[in-house]
């Protein structure tokens, strides 16, 4: 309305500088304007305010909403059915609890059941997925067509779009690309590597490093040509990352180089013992003469910084860490038990055991891991994750009293639920260490606690009076979280 702009312009400048005349007013107000403007009892401010008030009312009374042919393509009809009322109520409780693991647990069940959430919960889930990127695929699946539709309207939520993995890899944001690469690497490692190779020349150094980091998962000898071709990369970080990956893949040039060095440096020798009545096999460690300086540029230090290791032993221990344990089987024509036995009994071998353990974990050699756990007099906690669930349980229970915190640390990395026996041990220990194993700890690891644990919580109460009240509160909290787990299971099984 033109006249309203005149009012505003006059107000901005002030009535000392500008006035409104009757001629500027709409004809409809012609009858009233003189009554105001010609009133001698009123000053110019009053006259302006009265005219403006009249115009405000004129504006408000004549206000008509604009007509626009604008439209929004509606969301497609859902193909899946909605989750039942019970499931949705649990979801709301989980969202109030703000627990990532329980939400992940709920979404997995929802996806498995092939149902979706009610529309009113879609925005809150999409917002959660922007916060926790790992949930994006599950959330997209549980939000159905409504989620896809909202994703088109809000770019931050467009992970719920129906793009194929490859399309997402080519056109998505860097976070989305990393996530889809991570997922593809876990199910089809060769395809993931091919994707990286296709776009390699267009990536910047930081992206290259980040993408190589993802390729560390499920690496194999088929990655070697690509990784070795990166030797010509300009970026030091990219090259270092590629070398780091190559040091994890048996058969790579660098590992072959290390194996060659170990073949030349570590020998088995038979020596006489007990005044020549018996013989024993010992390990001899000596580096060959004239090692090329280029060898040391692969990340191996020449001089020992450990007093128990000579320079030669130190170099050998570093190299041993990057050689697959199976190398020793071929080298000595012995089985793992015999080799472990040899290392444990030999003075030189003992010094190399930590490096051998690191090799077992680096190459994730489960066969060696179980042998080592059975034979070793020293407990190497890093080996536990290489064992299968049953073996992990067995060793965790066996060794818990000696290394409770280490066992708990590894138990929290497991993907499957703890056994009741292990859970009781952990809870009993936690009950006596409330500052270390607080609410945040249980909130983060509730997915690992078996639901049948609820009945056992009281049994975990510490005998010490001063721990009891704290544990009672903690039990209530664990019970609450477990109850959400139970309700989730129930909602999706009925």
């Amino acid at each position, binding site marked *: 309305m033109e006249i309203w702009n005149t009012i505003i312009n006059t107000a901005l400048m002030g009535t000392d500088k500008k006035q409104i005349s009757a001629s500027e007013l709409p004809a409809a107000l012609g009858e009233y304007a003189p009554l105001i403007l010609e009133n001698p009892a009123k000053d110019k401010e009053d006259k302006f305010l009265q005219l403006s008030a009249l115009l405000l009312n004129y504006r408000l009374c004549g206000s008509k*909403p604009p007509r626009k042919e604008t439209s*929004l393509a509606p969301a497609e009809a859902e193909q899946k059915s909605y989750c039942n009322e019970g499931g949705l109520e649990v979801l709301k409780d989980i969202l109030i609890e703000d627990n990532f693991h329980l939400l992940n647990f709920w979404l997995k069940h929802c996806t498995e059941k092939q149902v979706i959430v009610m529309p009113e919960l879609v925005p809150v889930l999409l917002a959660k997925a922007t916060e926790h990127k790992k949930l994006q695929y599950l959330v997209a699946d549980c939000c159905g067509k409504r989620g896809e539709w909202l994703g088109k309207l809000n770019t931050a939520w467009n992970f719920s779009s129906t793009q194929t993995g490859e399309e997402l890899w080519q056109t998505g944001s860097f976070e989305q690309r990393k996530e889809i690469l991570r997922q593809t690497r876990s199910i089809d490692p060769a395809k993931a590597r091919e994707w990286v190779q296709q776009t390699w020349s267009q990536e910047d150094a930081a992206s290259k490093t980040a993408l190589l980091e993802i390729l560390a998962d499920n690496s194999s000898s088929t990655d070697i040509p690509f990784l070795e071709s990166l030797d010509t990369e300009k970026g030091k970080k990219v090259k270092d990352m590629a070398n780091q990956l190559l040091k994890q893949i048996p058969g790579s040039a660098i590992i072959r180089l290390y194996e060659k060095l170990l073949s030349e440096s570590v020998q088995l020798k038979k020596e006489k013992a007990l005044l020549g009545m018996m013989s024993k096999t010992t390990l001899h460690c000596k580096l060959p003469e004239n090692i090329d300086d280029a060898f040391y540029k692969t990340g191996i230090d020449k001089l020992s910084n450990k007093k128990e290791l000579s320079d030669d032993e130190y170099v050998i221990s570093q190299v041993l860490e990057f050689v697959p344990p199976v190398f020793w089987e071929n080298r000595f024509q012995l089985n793992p038990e015999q080799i472990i036995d040899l290392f444990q009994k030999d003075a030189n071998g003992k010094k190399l055991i930590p490096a051998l353990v690191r090799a077992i974990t680096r190459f994730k050699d489960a066969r060696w891991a179980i042998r080592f756990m059975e034979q070793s007099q020293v407990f190497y906690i890093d080996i536990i994750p290489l064992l299968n669930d049953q073996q992990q349980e067995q060793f965790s229970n066996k060794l818990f009293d000696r290394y409770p915190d280490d066992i708990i640390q590894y138990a929290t990395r497991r993907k499957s639920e703890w056994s009741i026996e292990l859970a009781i041990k952990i809870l009993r220990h936690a009950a006596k260490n409330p500052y270390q194993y607080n609410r945040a700890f249980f909130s983060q690891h509730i997915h690992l606690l078996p639901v049948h644990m609820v009945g056992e919580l009281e049994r975990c109460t510490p005998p010490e009076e001063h721990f009891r009240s704290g544990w009672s509160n903690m039990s209530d909290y664990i019970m609450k979280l477990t109850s959400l787990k139970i309700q989730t299971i129930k909602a999706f099984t009925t």
Partner: protein
Amino acid sequence: MNLTEDQILTLAPDESSKKSGKDLANPSKWVSRGASENALWGECQGSGSKPYQTQIDTANIAFKCSCPSRKFPCKHGLGLLLLYARDKKNFTVSAEPAWVTDWLAKRTEKQEKQAEKKSKPVDEAAQAKRQQSRQAKVSEGIDELSSWLKDIIRNGIISIPEKGAVFFENMSRRLIDAQSPGLAGMVNSLAEINYYTEGWPTRFMDQVLKIYMVIEGYRNSADLEESLQQDIKTRIGFTQNQDELKEQPGIMDTWLILGKQVTETDNVTTEKFWLYGTSTDQYALLLQFIIRGQGVQFNLTPGMFVQAELVFFPSAIPLRALIKRQVATDEVSHFKTLDNWQSVAEIETRLNSVVPFRTERAFIVRQLTPVQYNQQWWLKDMENNIVPLKTDYRHTWKLLALSGGQPIDMAVVGMEDQFEPLGIWQDNAYKIIQ
């Protein structure tokens, strides 16, 4: 009483109460649970030696609990009501125990005492003297406000953004001294304008002109109709004796609570309840002011139906009301809609022509669709008329998710060119958006 979990949770004073209330909606937390026609009760084992006694007047949605919490309703009240909403079978139907009947009796007694208090004679001479003194103070305050407004207009409003909140606070304080809290609030709202956004001069002038109309109206009250005089007095801050008001005949109806808006200033929480009378097709606004630590007069939750007699405050366009009498109801009633934004504009025109300084109102409009236009969200009716959503509206995505781009019947609150959705109807159920 048929409340959903979401409706019960809107009664919670804060997020942590919602969470704790949900935790307590578990039969194992309650030593005893009972229900009768008028009440719910339960005993909850807390940290004390004796269980807390929690009771709910289901007819009027009132809570009482023996726990020491200052929150209202406390987590035990919420937990008990949630538990009842989840499964009524958790409660034994029986006669109320003594501690519940005592409380219910005390509530009735209190209401009766209030009625008695009303009948006490007032000293009319003293009252007249007080009124005279107040009117004098108000007139003085209005004169100062008028000069202040004229100074602004004379010098131009271009420099207003630089003046800061103190400029308005000083005038507002002066008006409080002049016993004109309503005007003080109107002046304070000038400080709340975002002077960094386009269009601030219009928003500023709209409010200045409303203040001007109120003060000029007050000065010329004698020429106005009594109902309009009441509107002016209300905007200035003259209060209405609510006890006297309750003696007036009210309107009995089944009211749907369309929405609740909560604001907090200086430890005072203001709750605005927007109601729709399903038989009378009339809208009402209930206000509740809660001072921290004190109880509330009534508990209503959006989406619920209440059968109640409402008395409207005198006005040329009645809107604000108070509850005279409320009875429990499980009734779910139907509603009428306005056809389009044009119908809303026509009603607004009629209202503006009667009270040009009026405030926002609620409307139920048929088949609105959220659409995007000029990088802003609008609500489009079936005739393609569009009205923008309030710029600070926080629930746009929930609204979109519910609508899915399809038209839906919607309850909105606002005026002229800014509306905020309160709830929608879907599958014959009213869903609140908050």
